[in-house]
Structure formats: C-alpha cells, structure tokens
C-alpha cells in the first residue's frame, strides 16, 4: 500500500511497465489493457475496471467484487469467481469453429 495516498498498489508489476516509445503513457496503456481484458472477460460475464492506476476491481453479474493488484491476479481471481480455469490454450476455440462454420456456409452458398 502506498503510505502517502493509501492506495493498494500493484503498479510495479511487470505488466504495468510502459514501453519506452514516443508518446508512451502509462495511464493510456492501462486503459487499453483493461479494455482488452474486458473483451476476454465479457464472454464470462465478468467486468474489470481500473482502480486509481494501481489496482483493478473485478466484478461479476451477481455482485461479487474483488480488488486485485495485477494481471496475474486478475486471471486467478476470475478463475475463482467462475469456478473453472481460463486456459489461453483453449480459449476462443469457438471463434475458430464460428469461422469454420461461416466458411462452410459460404462454401455451401457458393
């Protein structure tokens, strides 16, 4: 916790590092990360918001909320809420199927 402002901090986690480019902004990058994370989580009806640039609040549709420090913990907490693993190796397999279906449909149409 930051002694000056009382914020719970995960700001030092590696995923919060800003790439040293022109116009790099930690805050902006964090918003992009949160937006992307929500695109992953929305399929599971979970939602992530930034908390003062230091932590995140992960919440579910049933009103469960948890403060987490960094992205490693975001996924762990999400797994806890869902009661099942979030495995990137199998995640969005369905998208593939959808695409295949779409392609099949197109082919059939042709």
């Amino acid at each position, binding site marked *: 916790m930051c002694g000056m402002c009382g914020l719970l901090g995960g700001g030092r986690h590696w995923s919060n590092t800003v*790439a*040293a480019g022109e116009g790099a902004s930690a805050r902006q*990058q964090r918003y992009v990360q949160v937006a992307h994370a929500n695109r992953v989580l929305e399929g599971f009806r979970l939602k992530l918001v930034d908390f003062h640039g230091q932590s995140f609040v992960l919440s579910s549709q049933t009103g469960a909320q948890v403060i987490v420090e960094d992205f*490693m913990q975001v996924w762990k907490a999400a797994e806890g809420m869902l009661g099942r693993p979030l495995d990137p190796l199998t995640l969005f397999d369905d998208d593939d199927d959808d695409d295949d279906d779409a392609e099949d449909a197109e082919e059939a149409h042709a």
Partner: protein
Amino acid sequence: MSLAYDVIPVTIVTGFLGSGKSTLLADVLKGEAARDTAVLVNEFGEVGLDHLLIGEVDAQTVLLDNGCVCCAIRGELKDALAALFSRRARGEVPPFSRVVLETTGLATPAPIVATLLGDRIVSSHYSIAAIVTVVDAVNAGQQRMRHPEWLAQVTAADRIVISKADLAGDACVLEKTLAQLNPAARIAWRTNDADASIVLDEAANAHDFADFVRRAGMREHDARGEVENPLARLNATPGHREGLEALNAFCIEFDAPLDWPVFTLWLTLLLNRHGDNILRVKGILALTGVAQPVVVHAVHHLVHPVLHLDAWADEGARRSRLVFIAQGLTRETVADSYRRLCRHLRTAETVD
C-alpha cells in the same frame, strides 16, 4: 529518473552437489576483478566446508547458518539480504557493488528468484544480474536421472559452466544436450584461466541476445534432423527419458511487431494457467511504436522486470522471438493461443 539509493546486482550461482560451485567461486573471485563483491554462502551437510573454501576470497563474506536455501527459506534469504544491505548502508561492511549468492546443490532456483523479484524490500535494493549453473560433466547423466533439481537448475540458467570436462569422456554430447534443454543459456567450459567475468557478467546484454537468437535458430535447424538426438546416447532409464522428452524447448517467432498491452494479457494468462509447467521463458520483442528491443525473462510464474536494450544488434533481425522451456506444451498450441487472442480482440474491438 534516477534512484536515490543503489540497486545491487545479484548473481545466483547454482549447480548440483559437488559440481564445483565453491571451487569456481574461490578461483575466480580473487583479485581486482572481483573487488566490491559480497558473497552469500549456505552451509549444508558437512558444514563449514564451503566456508573454508570461500574463506580465502578477499571480499566480504556472510554465512547463512541455516541449511538449505531452497526449502528452509524465503524468509531467511530475505532477512540475510536485507540485513546485508542495511549493514552496508550503515558502513559496517565495505560498500560492495554486487552480490554473489551461492545456493546449495539441492536448491531449485525458482524460490530464490521469487524472493529476489517478489519481496518488496529485497526487490527494491537488489536485481538479478544472472543465474549461473555449474554442471558436473562426470556425473551429469546420473544426477539428471535421479534428481529433478538438476533439471530445474539447468533450465533456469542464463549461463552454464561445464566443470570437470577433462575427467569426462564425451563432454561434447553433454554440451549438445544442455543446449537442447536450455537454448537460452550461454554455455562455457570451466578452464583454469577463467576470470571473474564467467560468474559476474550480466545476463541480458545485446551481444548475449544476438547469440541466443542465433542458437535458438540453430536448434530449429537441428530439429530438421541434421544432428542425431543427443538424448538417445544418454544412459537414461526409459521412464526418465520419457520425462526428458516431455520437456520441450521451442522458439516462437513473430514477424509483425507485437502490441504490448495484448502481449502482457496473453503472457499473464499463459503463466497463470501453465506457469507450473513453464520452466523458463526468455525473449526479445519488437513492439509496435518502439524502436528499442525489449527483453522478457520468466521463471515459472515469475517475470523479471522488463529490460529495454539500446538497439537491435542487427537491424535486419528485427523480429520478436520467444524461447520457451516447458513441459507438455508445444510450439503450435502456444503460438496458436496468441494468434487466437489477437483475433478475438480485433473482432471484439470492431463490434465495440
């Protein structure tokens, strides 16, 4: 921004029991090159032996009186490092500029890395310079068969030093095997005229990375069948050989620059779920909108602070490469998962 206090590089020297860690340190940490070095040693088993050997070194030596760094630990290594730093700050010990931490032969490096990266106090004052693993050429085959720590030590290494090569017959096979188990490490031979740099050099400089990329590329070359599988020539038991074969070192390349926010999400997702099986990740990344190469290191669930190198060693080779040493994962599944995540995010973004 400059820090008001020093961050001291720590070199972790590991290696199985009797592989020659203390001898290596006692030999190379003499004289001018190793000035300003604090050495942290563990006593284990027939206590005091290490102390006697290291006692010759003309540098600051502090002994941990507990047994094994690996299992006794966290708290105590942390305390030793914190105490060392405050004694330095109070002027009770000479102002050393680096630390060499010799682990016991039975330590796996991951908990030590966890302490150095994860503990708030320790990580503010120390950073990991390199993990150096000493491999005993004579007993390597046997140690690998019997002790899982051996493999953990080899895969975690930034630099591998092969010792007792003069006593072993077929050390070249060993070198090939090590290169295959850990393509991200530089392999050196222990010679009598080795200087302190074999221990004290930092791991992640641009030269090292160019070299590692070349080796990773070479390995793919080998995989096409030009070189026989060195594992085949080892006296491993069938069960153990299975274990070794399940261990897979592979390199993923990305032609297009990576988007850092997407990459962070993907790697945290992957390490959260599969960190137990991912012994090592080492990579050099070309990021969108960033001219400098970015270096990522991970051991199991832990990712070292990200480094920015000054420039690409070879402008033509501006591609991201990630080397994984993992159990039960393949290049295709891992590469596919990144591709799928990117595509999902792109699709979702257009819908938004």
